[in-house]
């Protein structure tokens, strides 16, 4: 193989995170950079999201996924930023050597900084406790979305959806509009996982029933799915066998969560957070391996693309600083109470930061505070918060080096 190609920055993934990071770097004078994208076109998951609702924060317009992606792709092309599609990154080392495979063969880059922007993948059937056969007709929501929206292939006629994440809700509407009969959406939690707007516009508008505290326990069928068994669950999420019902259907769509795609990060020895599934990062979005940074769904799952773009632009500023010299050390650990996880996990002294997290359950009048040594550093009250919407909390610069805890509780019931 030839000598590695030297680059200031190599960006792994050309979704909204990779594109926004590249543009921001270019604007700030970093010209020696390349985006590597596995698919034949850049744009990431947005290519198949033909519904609208993207860009509300950033552009104050309800754009569809491809339209949102174009707002970044056009300037990337116009500025002549190096972008290789059909190029899969297969290797990454802690010395920032990137190996990529494409039709042109194998290419290696030696980067001064690497940006992880590989997005996430969907949790599939194998990860779920379902008995019975493994017939055809079981799809993850994103795969069904790609079949219907990109390939013009219908996935089935009589459809059950497991999980009420936004993608599942969007697909309930999409499949109904395409002439399928969506029998119902089953959600193991006592509350919907998706945004309230999507519950109204994707289910209620089409009279699709939402069964909370329910799950699918068994698949039936030989070659093709013929039915599923659904069960109510108790408050420990254990199925109650006496409530089991058999529902004839030919298709089961799974919308049961996304997993950040971190095989490459692991290869480079980047430490991962068991709660986010993404890398542990400091407030500059640098991972535990110096010079390797992460933004977007590979870091933690985002609900809105606007947030991904903003995070990637913030990251670009930090990479520019890094290229000029090392970033300050971040020894201060951050933990959460009443929220699933907090990103970033490490803070430095003397520089303000923004923390992102999700409340554990839907809450009215959510109070969020950051506490250090028993002292409240900052506090915010949010009229309504759900796990479906990420919360951001700006915190002031820290003088002290002891750990920071983020606490979420509602006004009436202080945190336990």
């Amino acid at each position, binding site marked *: 193989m030839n000598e590695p190609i030297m680059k200031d920055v190599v960006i792994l993934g050309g979704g909204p995170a990779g594109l926004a990071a590249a543009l921001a770097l270019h604007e700030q004078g970093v010209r020696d950079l390349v985006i590597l994208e596995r698919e034949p076109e850049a744009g990431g998951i947005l290519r198949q999201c*033909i519904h609208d609702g993207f860009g509300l924060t950033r552009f104050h317009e309800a754009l*569809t996924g491809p339209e949102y992606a174009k707002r970044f792709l056009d300037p990337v092309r116009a500025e002549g930023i190096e972008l290789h599609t059909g190029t899969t990154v297969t290797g990454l080392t802690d010395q920032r050597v990137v190996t990529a495979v494409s039709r042109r063969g194998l290419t290696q880059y030696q980067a001064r900084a690497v940006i992880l922007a590989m997005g996430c993948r969907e949790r599939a059937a194998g990860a779920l406790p379902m008995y019975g056969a493994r017939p055809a007709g079981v799809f993850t929501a994103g795969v069904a979305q790609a079949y219907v*929206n990109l390939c*013009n292939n219908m996935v089935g006629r009589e459809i059950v959806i497991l999980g009420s994440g936004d993608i599942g809700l969007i697909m309930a509407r999409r499949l109904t509009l395409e002439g399928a009969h969506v029998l119902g959406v089953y959600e193991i939690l006592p509350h919907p996982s998706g945004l309230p707007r999507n519950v109204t*516009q994707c289910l209620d508008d089409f009279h699709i029933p939402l069964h909370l505290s329910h799950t699918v326990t068994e698949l039936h069928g030989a070659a093709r799915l013929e039915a599923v068994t659904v069960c109510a669950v108790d408050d420990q999420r254990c199925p109650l066998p006496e409530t089991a019902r058999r529902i004839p259907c030919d298709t089961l769509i799974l919308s049961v969560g996304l997993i950040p795609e971190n095989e490459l990060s692991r290869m480079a020895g980047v430490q991962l957070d068991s709660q986010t599934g993404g890398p542990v990062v400091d407030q500059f979005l640098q991972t535990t391996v110096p010079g390797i940074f992460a933004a977007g769904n590979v870091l933690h799952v985002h609900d809105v693309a606007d947030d991904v773009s903003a995070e990637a632009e913030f990251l670009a500023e930090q990479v520019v600083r890094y290229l000029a010299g090392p970033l300050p050390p971040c020894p201060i650990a951050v933990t959460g109470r009443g929220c699933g996880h907090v990103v970033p996990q490490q803070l430095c002294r003397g520089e303000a930061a923004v923390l992102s997290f999700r409340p554990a359950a839907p809450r*009215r009048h959510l109070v969020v505070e950051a506490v250090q040594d028993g002292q409240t550093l900052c506090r915010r009250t949010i*009229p*309504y918060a759900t796990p479906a*919407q990420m919360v951001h909390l700006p915190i002031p610069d820290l003088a002290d080096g002891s750990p920071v805890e983020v606490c979420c509780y509602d006004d009436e019931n202080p945190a336990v």
Partner: protein
Amino acid sequence: MMTKTLLCSLCPNCCALTVTMEGDAVTGCTGNLCTQGADFARQELTMPLRNVTTSVAVSGGLYPLCSVRLSAPIPLSRLTEAVDLLHGLTVTAPVAMGQVLLEDLLGLGVQVLSTRSVPAIHFCKD
């Protein structure tokens, strides 16, 4: 008099609105943190509006489908009719993003816009 509850979906505050109605008219709204909530409730309970995003068939294109949306939302009651009409539509490649594919959908005064570009493919005839 009748009361109805709904969630305002205009912003992430997601206010829980309680609305009083006399017949078809909205007479009061509580629970909204801002005035837009009352307007939202009136619209949702009298004539809900929705945009439509779906795909139309393309002939002679690199892809079989072109995704579309409407230039403005239409009444929810006309949505099925609109989708049926769009499913019967075939456009000819090339299609540019933002191209108007239908001028006046169902006489509602809204346009059908393409949301992706589909290049034409040229077959060799020999």
